[in-house]
């Protein structure tokens, strides 16, 4: 394919090339426009370098991106606009993302305050959950591929190494050499595994590490042997480099970078949950440590290091199902009544048998609109604490281990709106809540449960006590 070099002003398939944005070894990126279409919204065109002798993974990567991008949607990926005929000028046109890459932010600021790292971590983990829900593992997350939109949303770009679990993996046959970017590539990717969603957690952990400390956790080794070290050698704890890093942030970062599957987060949503509810995250030995593991621990890990065959190929969606976030919403204003007890039974069933599932127990403390100031004082604080204690007591019977359960008292004027907001923000998979009777007054006023059922973006189980048998 001896295409001549595109020039500014050229028109390809109706798109006018405006400015060259980036020229890389694999492709060039142009800012383009299509007069009269998309309301004049700016677009970007990617043109692969397909000349003879080019790296074959550049071509396959382009094929992959052309296959995967049209199937993705939502704010966390660039919107696909058009693809060029492979026999003419192969290209890919997508939405121009207004925003800055984490690479640009790092270059300017060196490192970021822990609160900003956590906020970016939450946004990136939410974006990742959304991507995994769409059957795609990115497999090349790095600061240059993570864009921060002005509203704080994260968008991932460059799907040239990605894997869609319902489509052929065009890179599967390519090579045993690690495919990815050295500082961020996961241990299993170094081994050639391309089916592990947690590879993206690892890369994100490495990015958060770099944002916190200004350093890459495993350096930038250029050979496979150097990249292999991350299978057993843990990085220097972030707090040893940046003392302002709070223990819970270190816990989250090191957990993403763990090699043992059991220590990793079950899903990106669980990582987002941990980063946005730091007071609830149970702290393990990682949280406080200031030194790397000792010689014997590392040696033991090295001897037990996983092999490629230890990773089973499976569907991303199966992983997400096994790591569901379940919310039990219980009304404790009248103590633990029969309905609250039934909600507990159903919530227990929703998480049992799924070792990766997490239960968040939620209750709403209703605040009257006019007395906000009053409840904000000591009295309000004690009502909050009292309700939290009651919630924990309610959940005690479920006997769930501390790392599987969390407790949240939401203070709100409108309980239904508060619950809907909570399950949306936390990417909850399943909400269990109780409904009180179905009296005419309730139908007239509208119940919390019916509003939640109508608007919550997840599965909702409504628990209702059986109405007394009226005979007849």
């Amino acid at each position, binding site marked *: 394919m001896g295409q001549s070099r595109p020039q500014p002003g050229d028109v390809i398939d109706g798109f006018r090339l405006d400015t060259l944005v980036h020229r890389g070894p694999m492709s060039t990126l142009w800012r383009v426009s299509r007069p009269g279409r998309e309301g004049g919204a700016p677009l970007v065109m990617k043109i692969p370098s397909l000349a003879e002798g080019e790296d*074959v993974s550049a071509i396959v990567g382009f094929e992959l991106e052309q296959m995967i991008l049209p199937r993705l949607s939502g704010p966390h990926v660039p919107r696909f606009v058009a693809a060029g005929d492979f026999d003419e000028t192969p290209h890919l046109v997508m939405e121009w993302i207004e925003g800055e890459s984490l690479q640009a932010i790092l270059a300017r600021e060196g490192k970021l305050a822990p609160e900003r790292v956590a906020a970016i971590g939450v946004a990136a983990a939410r974006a990742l959950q959304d991507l995994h829900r769409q059957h795609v593992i990115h497999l090349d997350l790095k600061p240059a591929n993570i864009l921060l939109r002005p509203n704080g949303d994260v968008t991932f770009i460059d799907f040239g190494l990605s894997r869609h679990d319902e489509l*052929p993996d065009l890179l599967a046959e390519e090579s045993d050499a690690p495919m990815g970017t050295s500082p961020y590539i996961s241990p299993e990717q170094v081994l050639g595994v391309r089916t592990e969603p947690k590879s993206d957690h690892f890369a994100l952990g490495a990015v958060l590490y770099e944002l916190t400390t200004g350093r890459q956790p495993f350096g930038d080794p250029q050979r496979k042997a150097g990249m292999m070290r991350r299978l057993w050698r843990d990085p220097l704890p972030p707090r040893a480099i940046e003392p302002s890093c709070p223990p819970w942030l270190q816990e989250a970062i090191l957990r993403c970078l763990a090699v043992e599957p059991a220590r990793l987060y079950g899903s990106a949503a669980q990582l987002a949950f941990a980063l946005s509810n730091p007071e609830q995250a149970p702290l393990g030995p990682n949280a406080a440590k200031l030194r790397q593991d000792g010689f014997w621990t590392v040696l033991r890990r090295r001897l037990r290091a996983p092999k490629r065959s230890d990773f089973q190929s499976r569907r991303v969606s199966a992983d997400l199902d096994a790591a569901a976030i379940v919310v039990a919403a219980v009304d404790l204003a009248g103590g633990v009544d029969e309905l609250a007890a039934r909600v507990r039974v159903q919530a227990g069933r929703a998480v049992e048998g799924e070792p990766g599932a997490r239960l968040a127990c939620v209750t709403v403390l209703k605040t009257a609109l006019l007395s906000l100031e009053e409840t904000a004082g000591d009295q309000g604080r004690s009502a909050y604490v009292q309700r939290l204690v009651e919630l924990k007591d309610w959940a005690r019977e479920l006997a769930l281990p501390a790392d599987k359960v969390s407790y949240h008292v939401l203070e709100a004027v409108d309980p239904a709106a508060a619950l809907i907001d909570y399950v949306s923000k936390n990417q909850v998979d399943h909400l269990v809540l109780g409904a009180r009777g179905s009296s005419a007054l309730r139908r007239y006023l509208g119940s919390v449960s019916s509003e939640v059922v109508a608007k919550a973006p997840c599965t909702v189980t409504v628990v209702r006590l059986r109405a007394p048998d009226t005979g007849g």
Partner: protein
Amino acid sequence: MSIALFSDVHGNREAFTACLADARRRGVARFVLLGDYVGYGADPAWVVETVAELVGQGAFAVLGNHDAGVETPDPGMNPVATFALNWTREQLSPAHLGFLRSLPLSSLDEGRLYVHANGWAPGDWGYVTSSVEAERSIRSVQQRWTFCGHTHVPMLYHMAPHRPPGEFEPLPNKPVPLAASRRWLAVMGSVGQPRDGNPAACYGLLRRDPLELTMVRVPYDADEAARKILAAGLPESLARRLKTGR
């Protein structure tokens, strides 16, 4: 315009009826028949007539080894298949046989090759069951896309220039783009006797711009098809396998 590709109907009227109805419901107006209309199932005459009618309306149809075997017995065929073919022969009229005899071994359609078994020697009936045979088939034809059947197990093979072949087990009802950047060999599952563990009938649905292939699975009344096989005095194993898809 979408294209439906049917392979290995094998005299199964119930499965073929269900697949044709499903394809028409999806707006398919163009049909490709990839051979083995007869053998195993209890309704060979009806299936041949239906195929002939589709061909009369412009459908592509190629010859399968069981179709050829009705008049020219293949000594390599297993005893159950031979028994079923002997029975089938008695069900078909000279007109049916004449139609089968008229079918080509391969057809070309806008850069797509249709064959029953493989691309390297369509009349030798060699199976494509691994990427080794897939590579042989892909290399021996000019076309970018080859569509076949014969194995009763849906499978996709693909090759980029100067690269080793890749293989992919397509998921039921999930479209897969067949990008023009590489060459493809798509093996359809079977309409009338699936053997991939899923007893639902299988056919290929091809959509264009961009080219996407879906292995559509259609549940059908396999109990009735099995009952007719037994009633016709055909081997019991032929009835049983319809219910397990093995």
